[in-house]
């Protein structure tokens, strides 16, 4: 006990450097996003912003406040292009998360049923693709899905289709890419909760006459709800803002919000509108982010 108290003071000091770093490079930048989202783009100039000048004093601060405007947000609200972009992102994320759950659950369930000895091996096999480059994994699918790619060759050879199908630049390709890239994020939390279920509960259910299916629905599925929640959040939140996968695999007809933000920033060089898009996206994700943070905190700090 004496040791525990002795340790906590230096441990608190250990927080100082990472705390300041995250304040400076994670929290503070959102302030700049907010500020730019409330300002006007300078026409016929490269996107140049005034250098931050704290020496101006209160008067300069007041003038800066007065110069702020909600025009960018009015633009977002008035142009359906942006609303559709947000809507599409949320729909894509919801559909992807559902597919991920449907695909990931049986795999995680199978892993938890393996003999204890081989479970760590299965876990490493699921984690390894997570370590290999995300970009490469998406690129691998372009190889497979392109017009004269291996998928069409197999389909034609098996006489399942008479002529090669178009896969690239479709929503189907995008969903395949998203499910492929995010699958480990879904499997790992599911497996973590499934592996912790006490076999005695399943045994009790069987002794009371429950079939395998009844036992699954009444015992296993409810007990795995925390894993379902964690996996769903871990996938849903980043997918809403996904850029690389839809950009490489989906068609360009209806962009997701990440693509729209990219377009405004890099192509149109309209930093204020890009910032306003980021602010709205952040507000949209705030609720799931807060829930996720609580789940994560409970998971990592509850054990102690």
């Amino acid at each position: 006990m004496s040791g525990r108290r002795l340790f906590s003071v230096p441990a608190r000091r250990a927080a100082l450097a990472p705390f300041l770093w995250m304040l400076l490079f994670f929290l503070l930048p959102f302030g700049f996003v907010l500020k730019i989202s409330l300002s006007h783009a300078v026409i016929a100039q490269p996107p140049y912003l005034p250098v931050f000048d704290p020496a101006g004093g209160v008067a300069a601060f007041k003038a800066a406040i007065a110069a702020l405007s909600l025009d960018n947000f009015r633009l977002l609200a008035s142009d359906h292009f942006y609303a559709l972009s947000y809507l599409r992102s949320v729909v894509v994320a919801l559909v992807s998360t559902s597919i991920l759950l449907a695909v990931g659950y049986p795999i995680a369930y199978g892993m938890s049923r393996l003999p204890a000895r081989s479970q760590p091996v299965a876990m490493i096999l699921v984690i390894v693709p997570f370590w290999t480059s995300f970009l490469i994994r998406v690129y691998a699918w372009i190889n497979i899905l392109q017009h004269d790619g291996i998928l069409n060759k197999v389909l034609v050879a098996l006489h399942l289709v008479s002529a090669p199908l178009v896969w690239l630049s479709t929503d189907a390709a995008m969903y395949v890419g998203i499910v492929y890239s995010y699958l480990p994020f879904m499997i790992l939390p599911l497996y973590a909760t499934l592996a912790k279920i006490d076999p005695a509960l399943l045994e009790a259910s069987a002794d009371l006459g429950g079939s395998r299916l009844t036992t699954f629905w009444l015992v296993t599925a409810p007990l795995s709800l925390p894993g379902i929640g964690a996996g769903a959040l871990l996938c849903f939140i980043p997918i809403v803002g996904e850029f690389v996968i839809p950009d490489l695999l989906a068609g360009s007809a209806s962009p997701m919000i990440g693509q729209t933000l990219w377009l405004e920033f890099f192509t149109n060089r309209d930093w204020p509108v890009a910032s306003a898009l980021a602010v709205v996206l952040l507000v949209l994700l705030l609720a799931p982010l807060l829930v996720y943070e609580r789940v994560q905190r409970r998971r990592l700090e509850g054990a102690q």
Partner: protein
Amino acid sequence: MMATSALARLSPFNITSLALGLAFLYLPIVILVIYSFNASRLVTVWGGWSVRWYVEFFNDGAMLSALAMSLRVAAVSATAATVFGTLAAVALTRAGAFHGRTLFSGMLYAPLVMPEVITGLSLLLLFVAVDAQRGFWTVTIAHTTLTMCFVAVVVQSRLGSLDRSLEEAAMDLGCDPFRAFVKVTLPLILPSVVAGWMLAFTLSMDDVVIASFTTGPGSTTLPIRIYSEVRLGVKPEINAICTLIVGSIAVIIVAASLASKLSSRQGESAAPL
């Protein structure tokens, strides 16, 4: 007993879903690796085995300098991220309650799921606001910020499961907390610290979005370069580069799991997240 063995047995459904799942995860990468040895310039026509695209890559100066840039950014940012991430993990598991703890853990967990376009844009606006020269250092700072959170999670899950009576014993025997940490705790969590460093390194080597926002002219990273080539279509040289990256990551993972098996008798796997 019979019920247990029947329930614990792998059903054909379990085996099928596991096999299909692993095939889905690995087949695309295997196909990519095979096609990187294709002699034909047409990516989809098999022209026999060849290493010509690897030779092409090693003669591509722009690609090589992008690779060098990425390796430098990844090495520096992963090292900084490991130091900060480990400190953060120690604070979260050992400091008890302190002011700003919720904010601290929130700032550490949020970047794990934060869409990269938001993180990238916000960091860029910060760098522009302070008039920082964009290039190597801005990308390195951005990657440190992102990857230290992953390190913190990996190290934290190891620290949380560690038997605290060991470091308490060291302090009861007269070690000050710092010595107890260095002599007792650090060796025990070393596998997860190493795993955290490698995860940070690979994440940095992989990032397109945040690097695109925070880099400047003349400092292109390998993923940015690959990405701009991929947008134009499949190229055999890209297959070769991707195979080299996958190969080096595979070597790192095998080395890491061997190292952690040797150093930790608990056999705890170094799982990210």
